Every structure is written in structure tokens, then in C-alpha cells.
């Protein structure tokens, strides 16, 4: 392995000066094609993200219920909510919200007679019908908990339902209270992965646990009955059996949920909910702009991955996009539709292309009143090139020089700033990327000048020079580092942790194959899903977590 173990930990925060410069040069392709053997990571509980919770409810109880508006917020770790879901602890208020959500959903279900009848496998005979209740809980409980219930669990739920039926004199109450118990149980709220001995004696997820891992990766939702049946019957064991299900799942419309979840997490699109701009400076800003910008990016993502099955490079170079009237105004193009989203093709040889030319990236990685070459540079380095940008050293005066006649553009001001050695190391790593994007203002409008001064958007990245924004996006799209970074992000999303030393060989192989096969996301999802790494787990970690300053 050519990567240095000490440097591949993405979250490593080096305070040493010049650390950024040291990091340039990581991520080289291995010189030998012998991949290190897998040493699987220990299993951990994964709390459902908000999106997974919602998708689970839709799949389990049907669409159209009012979903909870207040659930414990997801925590982004390594920039990914799915990683946070395997680390974070739920707060007391979060548990309170789970209880309220479970009661609300169960109440809505029984209030909707048609929906309820559709879920009941039997017609109840009177308020207390233990047999019918048991049938319901056996069937629906298996889907909700994503595994068959034990006898004791079933008995406990039946007892709750029977007590409710007796107290409130209604069979609906039996369903309502036992369903509320299913929905607020940790067996629903967490994806339980403990693992056990596989046929070959090594530790792996049980097939039932594995079914959930597959479905939350490929559908961002729970396994369906077919997948659970296979798992409970022991028919999710061989790679061939797994591949058959994976192919079925990749062909299902629910795949789009997973693609949206991955791109949303990877590109921090959730932050667009809270986009704030000074409207006296950005006349095109409106309260719903952030949401529209996110939808534009997600539509591009699903188009590249699902509709076209194209290289991830086209995510950065596509000239076709979907816009609302407001987005079209920012792009200075004719709106394709009056309401909602319509597809447009940006002019060939025009100023912008791809995700980096979209409002989502440009507005999010900027200040409320101006651009930020640094924020944009950090995003490209960390999210697109998988490089680490250390925090600024403490105690350094971070003040930018004032605008003066000799330094009017952001580049000129920041270049003065970079004369300070403590700052230069990292800012010369991030800012030149942002300088190449200075023609796009803090909300994503094209501009030729900054404060009346001409913008110099030329530069160099990854050994390639660029003459302006569009060439810069082309350089990133073509760069080896970007193509090797995407699998790392998708792997973290799938595994819900940053890759470990023991997984590095597998990841390198997946990455090599990804690059060799046209850098397409969907085949990579398939490759991860059927890979041994996705099924194996190490021993349960009984020691306290490692703590580092």
C-alpha cells in the first residue's frame, strides 16, 4: 500500500504548520495489484436517519400519513449523516419525540379504516380478538422489526394490545397501542447488527441482519417481504443468492431514495434548508431558494446515476439540468416552465456546467454577503478530493486586509493574507481553487468583475492549469483523485463508518474496478453490496472506545 496509515485517516487534524503541503501526494494508486486481506470492522447499532425513518414508515404503513415534523436531528460525522447514525447518542427529547411520533402514526393508521383494513390479515371478531391481533403482530411486526419476533416479544405485544382493547373496548385500540410499541422500540429505531458465526466459521452478519444492511444501503428503507423471506430461509448466503436480490433491488424505483440520500449527505445538501443571504446584495435570494437548489442537484444526480448510468465525471460537467423560474433567473437563461422544474440545456461553451456551477454548491459555500474562495476550496478538497484541511492554528490573527485601491478582488486581498507564513500553508492549498470560481458570486450569478476590478480566474490544480471556471470544473472532473474519492465516500455511506485499516485493501480493489469500469455509481453500489466486506463483521467490541485528543 502506498498510502501512509498515519495520513489516510481523513479526520486527522494536524496542527503542525505546513501540514496541508504534506498531505499533497496521498491517495496515489497502488503500484502493486495485491490487495490486503479483509479484517472486518466490529458491528455497531445504527440509528435510523430521519430520511430512513420516513422511508420505513412509508414502506411499512403506506404513503400518505403525516410524518413527524420533529425527530432527533441527524449528526453529520465525516460529513455523512449515516456515519453519525452509528456513533451518536439519542437525547431525552429525541426519545420523547420517538414516542410522540409512534403514537401519532399508530393513531393515524387506525383512524384510516381503509388503510387499516389493508394491513389486517383477518377480520376481528369483537374488541378483544387475540388470534387476529396475534396474526397482525406476527406479520407486521416482522416487517417493522425487520426480523421474526420471538415468542416472548410477541406475547408482550399481544398483552399490550389486549389491555388496550379491554380498557378502551375496541380492537382498533389493540392495533394502535401494540403498533405504537413496535414503532418506538429500539428494534425498529436502530438497525441491530450483532453478527454470528457464518458457515465458514468466520464472523458475519446473520442473514436477517444482512437483509437490512442491503435494503438501507440500496433503498434507504427497510427490507421487503421477499428479502426477509430469503434471509429467514437461509437463502441469502451465497454471493449468487445475494447478487440476485441486489439486482432486483437495483431495478426497483426505491433505489432513487438511496441515490438521493447519498448525494444529499455527501454534498451537505441538508444545510440548504438554512441558507441565508443578504437580499439587498443578492436580489435573487428568496426563502425557498435553498430547497429548490437542492432539488436541482438531486435531479442531476439521479439523472447521471439512474437515467444515464454515466461516469461520475458528468455530474461535474453536465450541461443539462432542471431548474425553476428563480433558478433560471440566476443562471440568466429562459425559464423552461412557469411552475416547478423543467429541463434546460446550458449553452455549449458557456460559462458554467455541472454541480459546481449550480446554486446549491456556490451559495452554500459562500458568505451571506460575499463569495468565499476558502470555503469553496475546502469543500472541493474535502468532499470531492478526499483530502484533509487542518483547522487554522490557534492565536493567529486571521484578519483580512481591508479593501484598498491595490487589492480589490478577493484574490488580491487573500494573496496579501497569504504573505503570513502560518496562513500560507493551508490557504495556498484551498484558496486557488476558490479563485477559479470567483466569477460566480455568493449566490451563483455570473459576474465579470469584483468591486469593479477584473477577476483573474486562472490557476492550477492537480498539475493541470485552468483558464477559468469551466476549465477548473473540467480539471476536477478528470482528476484521478476525484475518481478515487467518490468510492471512498460511497463506501463510508454504505458501511456507516470511515474505512478502517482492515478494509483498505477491499476499498482499493473496489476503487480500481470503479475507475476501470467508467466510474459509474450504480455498478459501484452493486459491487459494494455483493462484496464480502458488506457481509462480514469483526468481534463485538467490548472495550471502551478509543479517545484521542
Amino acid at each position, binding site marked *: 500500500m502506498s498510502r501512509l496509515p498515519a495520513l489516510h*485517516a481523513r*479526520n486527522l487534524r494536524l496542527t503542525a504548520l505546513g501540514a496541508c503541503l504534506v498531505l499533497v501526494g496521498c491517495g496515489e494508486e497502488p503500484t502493486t495489484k495485491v490487495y490486503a486481506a479483509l479484517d472486518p470492522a466490529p*458491528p*455497531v*447499532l445504527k440509528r435510523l436517519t430521519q430520511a430512513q425513518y420516513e422511508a420505513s414508515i412509508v414502506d411499512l404503513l403506506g404513503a400518505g400519513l403525516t410524518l413527524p415534523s*420533529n425527530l432527533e*436531528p441527524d*449528526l453529520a*460525522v*465525516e460529513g455523512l449523516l449515516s*456515519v*453519525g447514525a452509528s*456513533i*451518536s*447518542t*439519542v*437525547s*431525552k*427529547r429525541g*426519545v*420523547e419525540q420517538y*414516542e410522540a411520533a409512534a*403514537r401519532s402514526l399508530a393513531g393515524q393508521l387506525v383512524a384510516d379504516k381503509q388503510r387499516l383494513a389493508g394491513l389486517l390479515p383477518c377480520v376481528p371478531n369483537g374488541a378483544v380478538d387475540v388470534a387476529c391481533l396475534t396474526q397482525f403482530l406476527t406479520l407486521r411486526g416482522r416487517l417493522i422489526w425487520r426480523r421474526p419476533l420471538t415468542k416472548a416479544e410477541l406475547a408482550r405485544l399481544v*398483552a*399490550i394490545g389486549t389491555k388496550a382493547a379491554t*380498557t*378502551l373496548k375496541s380492537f382498533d*385500540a389493540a392495533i394502535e*397501542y401494540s403498533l*405504537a*410499541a413496535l414503532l418506538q*422500540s*429500539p*428494534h425498529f429505531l436502530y438497525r441491530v447488527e*450483532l453478527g454470528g458465526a457464518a458457515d465458514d466459521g468466520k464472523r458475519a452478519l446473520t442473514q436477517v441482519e444482512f437483509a437490512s444492511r442491503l435494503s438501507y444501503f440500496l433503498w434507504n428503507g427497510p427490507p421487503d417481504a421477499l428479502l426477509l423471506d430469503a434471509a429467514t430461509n437461509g437463502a441469502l448466503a451465497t454471493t449468487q443468492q445475494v447478487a440476485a436480490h441486489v439486482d432486483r433491488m437495483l431495478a426497483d424505483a426505491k433505489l432513487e431514495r438511496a441515490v438521493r440520500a447519498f448525494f444529499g449527505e455527501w454534498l451537505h445538501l441538508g444545510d440548504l434548508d438554512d441558507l*441565508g*443571504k*443578504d*437580499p*439587498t446584495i443578492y436580489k435573487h435570494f428568496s*426563502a425557498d431558494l435553498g430547497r429548490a437548489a437542492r432539488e436541482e442537484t438531486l435531479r442531476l444526480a439521479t439523472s447521471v446515476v439512474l437515467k444515464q448510468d454515466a461516469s461520475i465525471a458528468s455530474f461535474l460537467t453536465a450541461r443539462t439540468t432542471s431548474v425553476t423560474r428563480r433558478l433560471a433567473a440566476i443562471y440568466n437563461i429562459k425559464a423552461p416552465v412557469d411552475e416547478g422544474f423543467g429541463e434546460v440545456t446550458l449553452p455549449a461553451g458557456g460559462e458554467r456546467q455541472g454541480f459546481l456551477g449550480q446554486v446549491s454548491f456556490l451559495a452554500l459555500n459562500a*458568505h*451571506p*454577503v*460575499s463569495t468565499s474562495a476558502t470555503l469553496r476550496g475546502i469543500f472541493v478538497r474535502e468532499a470531492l478530493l478526499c483530502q484533509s484541511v487542518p*483547522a*487554522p492554528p*490557534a*492565536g493567529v490573527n*486571521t*484578519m*483580512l*486586509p481591508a479593501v484598498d485601491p491595490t487589492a480589490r478582488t478577493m484574490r488580491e486581498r487573500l494573496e496579501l493574507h497569504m504573505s503570513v507564513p502560518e496562513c500560507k500553508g493551508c490557504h495556498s492549498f484551498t484558496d486557488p481553487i476558490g479563485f477559479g470560481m470567483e466569477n460566480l458570486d455568493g449566490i451563483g450569478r455570473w459576474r465579470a468583475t469584483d468591486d469593479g476590478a477584473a477577476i483573474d480566474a486562472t490557476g492550477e490544480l492537480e498539475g493541470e492549469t485552468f483558464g477559468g471556471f469551466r476549465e477548473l470544473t473540467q480539471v476536477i472532473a478528470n482528476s484521478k483523485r476525484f475518481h478515487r474519492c467518490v468510492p471512498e465516500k460511497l463506501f463510508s455511506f454504505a458501511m456507516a463508518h470511515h474505512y478502517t485499516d482492515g478494509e483498505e485493501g477491499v476499498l482499493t480493489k473496489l476503487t480500481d474496478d470503479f475507475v476501470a469500469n467508467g466510474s459509474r455509481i450504480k455498478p459501484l453500489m452493486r459491487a459494494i453490496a455483493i462484496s464480502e466486506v458488506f457481509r462480514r463483521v469483526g468481534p*463485538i*467490541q467490548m472495550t*471502551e*472506545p478509543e*479517545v*484521542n*485528543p
Partner: protein
Amino acid sequence: MSDAPTTRTKADRRVTRVYLSRRTLLKGLLGGAFVSIGLPPLELFMNTTGTAYADGAASGFPRRFGLFFWGNGNIPTRWVPKAEGIGDAWQLSEQLAPLAKLKKDLTVVTGTRIYVPNTEPHLATASAMLSGHPWLKIHGNHTFGGPTIDQLIAQKIGEETRFSSIEYGIASGTGMSHAGPNSVAPPEENPFKLFERIFGGSFQLPGDEPKLDPTLGLRRSVLDAVLADTKTLRSQVGAADSHRLDAHFEGIRSIERRLAKLEEDPPILKACAMPTKPALDYPNINGRPQLFEKNSVMAETIAMALACDQTRVFSNTFTRPVNNRLFPGATQGHHQLTHNEPGDQPEVNKITIQCVQAYADLVTALANVEEGDGRLLDSCLVFGTTGVSLGKTHSPEDMPVLLAGSCGGKLKTDIHYRSPSSENASKVLLTMARAMGLELSEFGSKQSYVDESIGDIEV
């Protein structure tokens, strides 16, 4: 309280609160018709002056703790009062001017500093200032190294009330309250939802009849099953996950506690009244959050939550570290200004004063509630701070510390205490924890460890 009622629940015996529970009388009637039972006058349980219910503290009221946090620091040269001392010996500084009417209730501590490595500007110092623990990497994630002071106090006294603590925020993002590493306690940012959570649905004003709700027993049986599930699962998982499930378990326990409170009579608290119902939403106006409108209406809600003894601990994350909010009148986002504004940073100065104003508005809301012979504020300790001192350099020196309220007479007020020796900021945390009744002789860890409080401000 010689004539304490004989029907007190176990929880009543453990705590100082006195109220009459009708739960015992009505046991067994669940599911039946509502039954009205004649009750003795509730004032029977007041003390002889009729001002308070019995409590060991001087005022007779429980002590309450609040945390107010804003991001991005201050400007120490404009923050630190010129003179030290008590009463007329010291005067407020430029940045503390909004506290003019509250000076007699205020203690300003300056000159303490944070000694943990400043590995992540804003957050490493915030972790130390609020928890006394360094910023750590645990399970690959950077996080506060321990519980924040509000949560630590809530872990100790939170069992007494319907909510062990209430976290809210104005433009808070994730919020600053942590129950421990990787355990954020997320704030409620919507004033209406905060109100609804405390005063909606099942809340009862003093003197209200308790609600006889047959579904409470059913909810309890659901929670019992969920507790059993959690316990079983906990026995199977690894070390880190068992801590996570412990937290989940505690969350279910607190719902149970809340249900039990609903079946008791509300406590007799004359100061308790229904606060104003906030508007449904406070949307940004022209890209700027309605910081002060939200802060004031949420302050009123939280003041009544304390007066009605629904909780004794709260935190308000006004803004978060590194936030780039557009404040009223500012030409750039807050964080951007701290680094970009040249000279003596008049805009940063103005924003810092606005943050102190928000703190003052919160404290004023507590001072406006009459309680017993005094004010609600008298039993409170409201800790105001931010994650750094000078934002421009992410300085850990001369940390901003504001304390309002005497904490039921445990702390002196109207003092400016300036540390003569750059004392460890954790001493402030230990002082507050002790004032709130935690019997601690030490606080924090690593470079934030202390075994001394600040005696000069203690009574």
C-alpha cells in the same frame, strides 16, 4: 410542614415539593367515568406565610440553572469592566451596557482562561468552557469531552421535575448542550413548539383538576415493553453501544416520569401562569433571523416553565460557534466580520452588545416574575458565555463569564471579579455546580481539571 398529606407518592418523599396527589385516591378507576372527589383547600400545603412551599433553601424555592451561549466571542478590551470590586466599586463596560438595570443581580468574572489545546478554534475552547473537558476525538468523531454544565446539573436534579432539562435555541444549529461525548441534546428552535411541548396538551395549571386519562396507563405499558426491549438489546451489544442504549433507556424513563407527573396534582405555585402563546413561525426577514423577537418570547416561555416547576434547568443556544448569521444592521455575517472587519471592529462590537442584550432580555424575563417575597431570578443562576474571547484570534485567554441571580443566596451579586492569575476557567464551572447543590470537590479533566472554586464570589 407538620401536616404533610399522607397520600404523597414516593417521588414526593424524596424531593421537597409538596402537592396533593389524587392518583392514589383514584386508582382503579381508570377506564371508568370521571369521578370528582372533594378535596381539602390546596393552600393547606403552603407554609405559614403563604408564600412558598417548604424547601431547605433560604427562599423556600428550588434553585434553577440556565445556560445562555452565543458564538464568536467578544472584544476583551471593550468587555472587561475597568474597576474590580463589589457594588459601587465597579461599573459596567461598553459591551456590558445592556445589563445596566440588572447590575445588582450580576457577577462578572474576567481574566480566567482555557488551557486545553486549541486544536479546533471555537469548539475546543467551547468544550472546555462549558464542560471542563478537552475537545476529543472519540470513535473517529470530534466532540465535547464531557457533559456540559447544564446537563451535569440536570443529571443531578432533573428527576424532580417533569422535564429534567429543556434545551432551546434561537439560531442555534446543533446546540451546545451535551449529555456527554457524541451526545448532543438538540435545542428546540421553534418558539411555538417549545411552548407546546411544555404548556400544550397535558399541562395543568395549579388548581386544575388532574386529568384522568385512561390512555396514560396504556402508554405506560407500552413504555414498559420498550424498556424491556432496550434492556435485552443492551445485554447483547458492545461497550460503546451499551452507553448509547443507556441514554435511550434514560429517555424512556423520563417519559414515564412525565406520565406520572400528569396524574399528580400540579404543584401549588402562585407565580405559575400560562405564558403568551408564541406565533406559529418566526421566518427570516430579508435573510436575517428574528433573533430578538424569538429570544424574548422563548424567555417568557422558559420563565414560566421554571415558575410552574416543569423544569429547573435550561439552556439557550442563542447562536452557535463559527455562525455566520446576519445580525440586524450588520453588513456581513458574524463570523466573517470577526475575521474580516479591519481596525477596532465596530460591527463585531455592536453584535457582541446585541448578544449581551439577548442575555439581558432573558434575565429580565426571570426578574419580572414575582415569586414568594422576591423574584424568580433570585433562585436562579444564569450562566452567560461564548466559546472564545477575541474572535479574531480565537483567543482562549480572558474568557467572558456572566452570572446572573444569586442562586437562592449561594452566590454574591453585583461583583466584578478579575482573576489575578489567569485562573483556570473550570473554576467557574465548579463554583456554579456547588452553588446548585452538587457536592463536588473537583471538576473537569486534563488541562481543564481544577480542585478549587472561586471563593470570592461564593457566599
